[in-house]
């Protein structure tokens, strides 16, 4: 991993909220870098500031002070619409609750980020289909979220995060609503995207098993970086899956 340029550079990042009159220091000066093509887990108990950090990394929120460079762009001073454009071009989001549009086909859900670009309808559809194939949902493009299982819904969400060819994918508790087998399937997809497509993965989780599939774990506590460790031997989700009793062989085959 060494020698690669950092896709995320954070320096002395501070975030304060005002709860009434009392200022709450959520992030108390954090500095770290994430290199291009890395697979990082961000861990910590609730209240540790990891959600706030995630919002800032995702350009949904701005830091109170300190600097944040994403792909070389200093995003701290950008306005609302400029941030929206950065999110559209550089970041893919995966949420715990999938956040798919109801009564909307899988393909159209995946197309959503492209709706806010100049991409033509035909190309939007083609790219959405490609992304669905990449997450093993070929042939399911016309299904609506209510017709899909939780794991399938999360795959649609991953396809959606892929479709605009982002620099990084931010996954906030992506397996929080899934059973352990499906969770490993999702991690297997992440590992493949990370290795084959070279997409930088950042996963927020409190589950050490999930974090074990990443290359680097960053632990937060009380708004400070507590521990930053590189895993000598990350887990192989694909292999772990093979060792589990084969419940849904057709899904396994597609991972």
């Amino acid at each position, binding site marked *: 991993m060494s020698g690669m340029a950092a896709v995320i550079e954070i320096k002395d990042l501070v975030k304060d909220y005002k709860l009434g009159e009392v200022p709450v220091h959520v992030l108390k000066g954090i500095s770290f870098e994430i290199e291009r093509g890395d697979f990082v887990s961000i861990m910590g108990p609730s209240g540790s500031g990891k959600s706030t950090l995630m919002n800032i990394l995702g350009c949904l929120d701005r830091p109170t002070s300190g600097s944040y460079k994403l792909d070389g762009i200093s995003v701290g001073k950008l306005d609302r619409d400029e941030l*929206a*454009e950065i999110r559209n071009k550089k970041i893919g*989001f995966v949420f715990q609750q999938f956040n798919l549009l109801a*009564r909307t086909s899988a393909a159209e859900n995946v197309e*959503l980020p492209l709706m*806010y670009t100049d991409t*033509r309808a035909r190309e939007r559809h083609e790219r959405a289909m490609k992304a669905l194939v990449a997450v093993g949902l070929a042939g399911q493009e016309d299904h609506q979220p209510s017709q899909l299982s939780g794991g399938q819904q999360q795959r649609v969400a991953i396809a959606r995060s892929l479709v*605009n060819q982002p620099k990084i994918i931010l996954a906030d508790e992506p397996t929080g609503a899934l059973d352990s087998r499906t969770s490993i399937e999702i991690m297997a997809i992440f590992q493949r995207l990370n290795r084959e497509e070279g997409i930088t993965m950042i996963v927020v989780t409190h589950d050490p098993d999930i974090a074990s599939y990443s290359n680097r774990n960053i632990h937060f506590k009380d708004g400070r970086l507590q521990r930053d460790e590189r895993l000598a031997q990350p887990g192989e989700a694909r292999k772990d899956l093979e060792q589990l009793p084969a419940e849904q062989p057709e899904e396994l085959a597609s991972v």
Partner: protein
Amino acid sequence: MNKLIASMKIALRALKVNRTRSALTMLGIIIGVAAVIAMVGVGAGATARIQDQIQSIGSNLIIVLPGSISSNGVRLGSGAVVTLTEDDAKAIAAECPSVSAVAPTVRGGVQVVYGNSNWATSAQGVTPDYMTIRDSSMMSGQFFTAQDVDAAAKAAVLGETVARNLFGDSDPTGQVVIIKNVPFTVVGVLTPKGQSPTGQDQDDVILLPISTAKQKVLGANKANAKAVGSLMVQAIGPQAMDQALQEMTALLRERHRILPGLEDDFTVRNLTEVFAAQETSAQVMSILLGAIASVSLIVGGIGIMNIMLVSVTERTREIGLRQAVGAKTRDILTQFLVEAVTLSLLGGIMGIVVGLAASLLIAHFAQWSTQVSPLSVLMAFVFSALVGVFFGYYPARKAAYLDPIEALRYE
């Protein structure tokens, strides 16, 4: 364009999800637009009716009546004294440049007899200029000529009411009717004009050459054989009415030797002006009706705003997601505006159909003429779109400026 079509698709889908709600919201706009179209149609119908009536009297028409004179302190009523003559008519026609035609008339009630049927009507002694001035035309036959007037020919032109009562469906032209024991040959029948603005049947009339009327039917005035009942004067154009009025007044005062400071011995009435005032009041009524109907359109708009606010709240998470994947302020604003405008435009189109149907029903059952102009349909359409934009803007703006983090977290 690409994005607009996409927004419209999203809007239609969102509206389809809540069918009942969308339909009820649209109902407000449908009623509003239909009310505007029907009410403006009723108003326009009334205005058109008055315009028709004005047209039926004759265009640019001024009527000169003999006026009152006071004699030893006793003021006599209008028309009590003969002050207008055929010579006045000729003088006006010859000397007033703003006057295009003058028709002297005398009138009186007569009993017209044909075979064994008879009919009481008003006989008018006129000259052929009457036709031009009243914008009349012949349904059959010919009007009598100036030669007929000079020769005091026993020719008569019937109004449609008279013709129907005496002759039924058969053509009276060439037949002979008896008026005061004098036989008159019917030379033609006037095209019906219907009611006058004051409610009189303008077709219940028999027209005779003024000379014949005075000599044989109505009797000449003992004091002045050339006296006439009134003069119908046509100005050369609508703008020349005032000028014609002044010229005539000056000429008549001079001819009647009225000293400055004394009152006219004739009365001039600009009929067009009187009915133009009626027309204006009909237009005011139509604007008023439209305004009242517009209130219901505004109420419909408030309904849209209400439902859009509900929709924004319900779809907070969706908005947050759209923002997260790159929707800019303007994208969200457009999406919800398009949705509101789609609601109001769909309602507007249906409202136009309902409004057209309503005005046809009013015309049919209330016997009230209605006129729906393409302009009022277009206005209703544009207005309903504007209602959508106006009442959709606040909810759309609210959606566009949601905080993406809170929107995504919204339960």
